[in-house]
């Protein structure tokens, strides 16, 4: 008894150490894997929520279908393009006044019309380094209805910037070159230029 006690205690200590080690390793592994896959995980949840909401909406849509109004207009960007732009607007300017959000959407539209930039809204948005919200992933936040409405207004021709294709936040802008462009106006935190 006397002799076996230290052996036992040492065994115990080692077991504890190994268990803690394994647990900590597992913990580290868990953290590292989840931190890498945090976004997909989140979007899965969002997707589930979305389908649920869509199902609800569909149910209500059926009930309301009869009230549908007559509309007639030129075919424009798809619903998904609007969503994508709303994501960009929300990521770039969610704290800005409504007009500021319409202005950001207008810049995207003006760029896609300009020969100096890519043609589709997606190519404009994902042009490397064009938008900070794309670079830091804020574009993957879920936009609110206000951002979507701002995009729709901009698509229907409301352009608070008067045709601008650039804007920057003077507090955070790092490129000196952007200051050299002709400035048109300031809306909220952003300065818009040609």
């Amino acid at each position: 008894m006397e002799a076996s006690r230290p052996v036992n205690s040492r065994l115990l200590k080692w077991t504890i150490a190994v268990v803690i080690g394994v647990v900590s390793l597992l913990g580290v592994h868990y953290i590292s894997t989840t931190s890498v896959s945090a976004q997909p995980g989140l979007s899965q949840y969002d997707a589930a929520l979305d389908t649920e909401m869509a199902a609800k909406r569909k149910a209500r849509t059926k009930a309301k279908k009869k009230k549908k109004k007559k509309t007639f207009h030129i075919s424009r960007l798809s619903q998904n393009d609007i969503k994508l732009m709303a994501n960009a607007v929300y990521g770039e300017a969610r704290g800005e006044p409504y007009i500021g959000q319409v202005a950001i959407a207008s810049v995207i539209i003006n760029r896609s019309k300009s020969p100096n930039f890519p043609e589709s809204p997606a190519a404009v948005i994902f042009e490397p380094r064009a938008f900070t919200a794309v670079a830091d992933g804020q574009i993957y936040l879920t936009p609110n209805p206000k951002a979507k409405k701002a995009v729709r207004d901009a698509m229907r021709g409301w352009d608070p910037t008067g045709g601008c294709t650039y804007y920057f936040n003077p507090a955070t802008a790092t490129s000196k070159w952007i200051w050299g462009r002709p400035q048109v106006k300031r809306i909220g935190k952003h300065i818009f230029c040609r």
Partner: protein
Amino acid sequence: MVYGAISRVVMPIAVVGLIGAGMWGYQEHNEKNSILIKAENQYQRAFHDLNYHIDRLHDELGKTMVINTRNQITPSIANVWRLAYTAQSDVGQLPLTLMPFNNTEEFLSNVADFSHSVAIRDLSKHPLTAKEQKTLHDLYKHSKEIKKELDHVQTKVIDKQLRWMDVESAIASDDKKTDNTIIDGFRTIEKRVQEFPEVDWGVTVQSVDHKRKQRIQGLKGPRITKEQAKDIAVRFAGLQDQKNKLKIDVDSDGKGTDYTAYSVRIVDGNVDNPLSMDITKNGGRVVWFLKEKEIQEERITIEQAEANANRWLKDHGYDTMVAAESDSYDGLGVFTFVNQQNGVRIYPDSVTVKVALDTGEVNGFHAVEYLYNNKVRQIPQAKITEQKARTVLSPNLKVTEHRMAMIEGKMDGKEVLCHEFTGTFDNQTYMVYVNAQTGQEEEVVRMETEQDDEVEGMDETQEQNETT
């Protein structure tokens, strides 16, 4: 002894923990590297692709110089169009947004537009003019310079194993210490393109360019002051009787000579729903106004809203307008009105009005197109009758309506008188415009009607209701 006991417990844990952390760190490091390499590869691909496409572009332009048969030149020019377009798309995938490279992009875009306008033309009827020959020659020379410079950069990128990721961070931070070969190379190209003598791009490109310049210059008319702008804004918004209660800010836009407007912001009571408005400095015309507000339950129909919009336009001096388009989103009715003269719709003179479907109030308006296009017009006589114009139409189209309209011509942007036919194909509505002077199809527009986006459209209104 106590210390020894503790160390006997802690040491193994620390060792195992350290190994664990080390393994984790190594794994993280590897993952980060592989992501960086993936990103770098994307840039490398776009860059080498750009070089390839510019090489081919230069080749094709060279071919157009020596081809003398008309039906051989069209495939070559069509290739120029495709390559210029692709090269521009390659540029869009490189991190050049934060440095001046826009002249080169514009150059490529103009090459694409110019070659497109030539490629789609029937060259046996309208062969290349001497002017166009010269333009092609100029483009050939310019593409040679761009190609030479790009080639030089590409050689260095490969030989010195330069990385675009470094360029990206150098541009973003204005860092002068890193290897600037790539940035300098692209700056040189941009400078060269800027120094190119003026290329004669032909009417298609010029008309777009002209329009843009005209817009930057702004409207003509007597100059107004900030105070006058304030009065105009208040009157336009119909808030004269509450003028003393309003908080009005007026900003003068832009600096230098390119400015056009005053920005007015009116806060009436509720700070969350300000009214924003732009008023031209010359002439004091309202370019647009927008009032953001939450829409409560919809009470009026789209037809009633349209009538409201029409009445509102008449009250604001637009009295010859007819509704051409209607749309509804987020509890709003949005209508585009166009000028009508002697029964002819004049599409370039268009304004857009937004009506809230709860109160029927007009809370948005813009007239950019109208202000720049409206003028005294002499509408020409149609040489082609409706009957004859109908024979041009595709047999696939079931015509339901006909009227006369003025639209901007495809080639040179000049206004042309057209027969406008509304028809359907596969349950989709199309508007086809047949030139009333030449009898050629000028434009086809696909229209979206309510059946089109029934479910999606409903989705949107539902979403609005959920949030309010």
